[in-house]
C-alpha cells in the first residue's frame, strides 16, 4: 500500500522532486483513522506528495512526516517567533532583518500597550524578538510583538546581551524538549537566552566571560549528543 511506501522511505535521504506517496492511495489506506500531517519540505503536486528539500524524511507520532534538513537561510513561516535587527525606521513601521530573503516590517503600533501618542522608541541596530503575523512567498513578511491575545508574552526589544547567528538546525535543536544544553548550562551559570526560529540566538549573562562561554558552548553543540553535551559542560565548569 501507499502507506507502506511512505514508511519505506522514512529515515532515508530524499531529494527535491522525489515522490513520497500518492494522495489518493494515502487517503484510502489511512481511511478514517487519522489525518496524515506533512511538515516542512513536502507539498502536494498533481495528486502526489513531493519533496522539495534535500534531507532525511522523518516520521513523528502519531502521523506526521517531515523532511529534516539543515540550512542557514531562513524562510519565514507564519506564527514562528524570530529575532531580528532593526535596519531602518519609517514613519509608521520599522524594517527588520530576520535573515530571510526580504526584510520584514514591524509596525510601530504592534507592541503591547502602544498607542499613537505612546510609541516604543527603537533605534536602528536594536534587536527585537517578534512573531511573524504575515508570511507567504509573495509578500513582505510582517512582524508583531504581541501574541494572539494582545499580550507581549516575552516579545519586544531585547536590550543588552549578545547575539550570535547559527544554523536553523541548531536553533531547532535548542528549542527541542529533549536537548539538554541550555538546561545543563543553566545549572552552573545565571543567564538568559532567546532562541529565534530564524537561526539567531541572543544571550544575556552577568559577565562578558560567561557570555562568551555560553556562546561558544552553543555553537560547538551543533553536532553533539546529549551525553557529549553534558561532558562538555562539565569540562567548561572545571576549567573555570
Amino acid at each position, binding site marked *: 500500500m501507499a502507506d507502506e511506501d511512505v514508511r519505506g522511505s522514512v529515515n532515508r535521504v530524499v531529494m527535491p522532486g522525489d515522490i513520497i506517496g500518492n*494522495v489518493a492511495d*494515502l*487517503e484510502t489506506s*489511512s*481511511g*478514517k483513522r*487519522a*489525518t*496524515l*500531517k*506533512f*511538515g*516542512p519540505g*513536502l*507539498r*502536494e503536486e498533481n495528486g502526489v*506528495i513531493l519533496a522539495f528539500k534535500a534531507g532525511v524524511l522523518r516520521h*513523528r507520532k502519531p502521523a*506526521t512526516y*517531515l523532511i529534516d534538513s539543515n540550512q542557514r537561510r531562513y524562510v519565514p*513561516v*507564519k*506564527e*514562528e*517567533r524570530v529575532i531580528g535587527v532593526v535596519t531602518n525606521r519609517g514613519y509608521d513601521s520599522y524594517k527588520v532583518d530576520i535573515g530571510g530573503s526580504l526584510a520584514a516590517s514591524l509596525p510601530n503600533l504592534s507592541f503591547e500597550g502602544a498607542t499613537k501618542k505612546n510609541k516604543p522608541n527603537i533605534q536602528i541596530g536594536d534587536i527585537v*524578538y517578534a512573531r511573524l503575523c504575515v508570511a507567504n512567498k509573495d509578500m513582505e513578511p510582517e512582524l508583531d510583538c504581541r501574541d494572539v491575545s494582545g499580550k507581549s*508574552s*516575552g516579545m519586544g526589544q531585547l536590550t543588552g546581551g549578545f547575539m550570535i547567528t547559527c544554523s536553523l538546525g541548531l536553533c*531547532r535543536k*535548542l*528549542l*527541542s*524538549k529533549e536537548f539538554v544544553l*541550555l*538546561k545543563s*548550562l*543553566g*545549572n552552573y*551559570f*545565571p*543567564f*538568559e*537566552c*532567546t*532562541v*529565534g*526560529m530564524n537561526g539567531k540566538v541572543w544571550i*544575556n*549573562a*552577568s559577565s562578558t566571560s560567561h557570555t562568551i562561554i555560553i556562546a561558544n558552548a552553543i555553537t560547538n553543540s551543533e553536532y553533539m549528543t546529549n551525553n557529549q553535551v553534558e561532558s562538555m559542560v562539565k569540562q567548561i565548569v572545571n576549567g573555570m
Partner: protein
Amino acid sequence: MAAEPQPVKKSLSKNVMAMKFMKRKAEADYRRQLEQEKQRAIEESHWVLQGKEERESCIEFEASYVNCEDLYQCGRMSFKKFNPAVEKLFKEMLAKEEEAKSQEWESEESVSDEEMTRRFVIQISV
C-alpha cells in the same frame, strides 16, 4: 367584591432612569441587541451550494517545524533567576502545554456514548 390588584410591572421612577449609570446600562442593552440582530442577518445571508459537499481530506500540511517537532513555542529562557519575569513566562507556557496535552489525551481515551450503552446493556443482561 374587591377587584384583584393588577400586576403592576415594576419600573423605576423617571428621575432614577435619568441617572447617568442607568442611561448607560440602557444604552449598552440596546447596543447589544443591535449587535445580535446584525449577527443574525450575517448568518442568514450565508448560503451553501446544493449538492456540492466538500470531501474531507485526511491530509494536511504544516509549514512550521514548531508544531511538527513539538518545539517550545516561546524561545525565551532564563536560568538561576537571572530574569524572573522570563522564568515565570516559561513556566506558564509549560503548564499550558501540559494542560493541552492532558486534555487531548483525555478526549482520546474516553469511552464513547455508544460504547458505554453497549457495555451497560451486556452487563445488565448478564
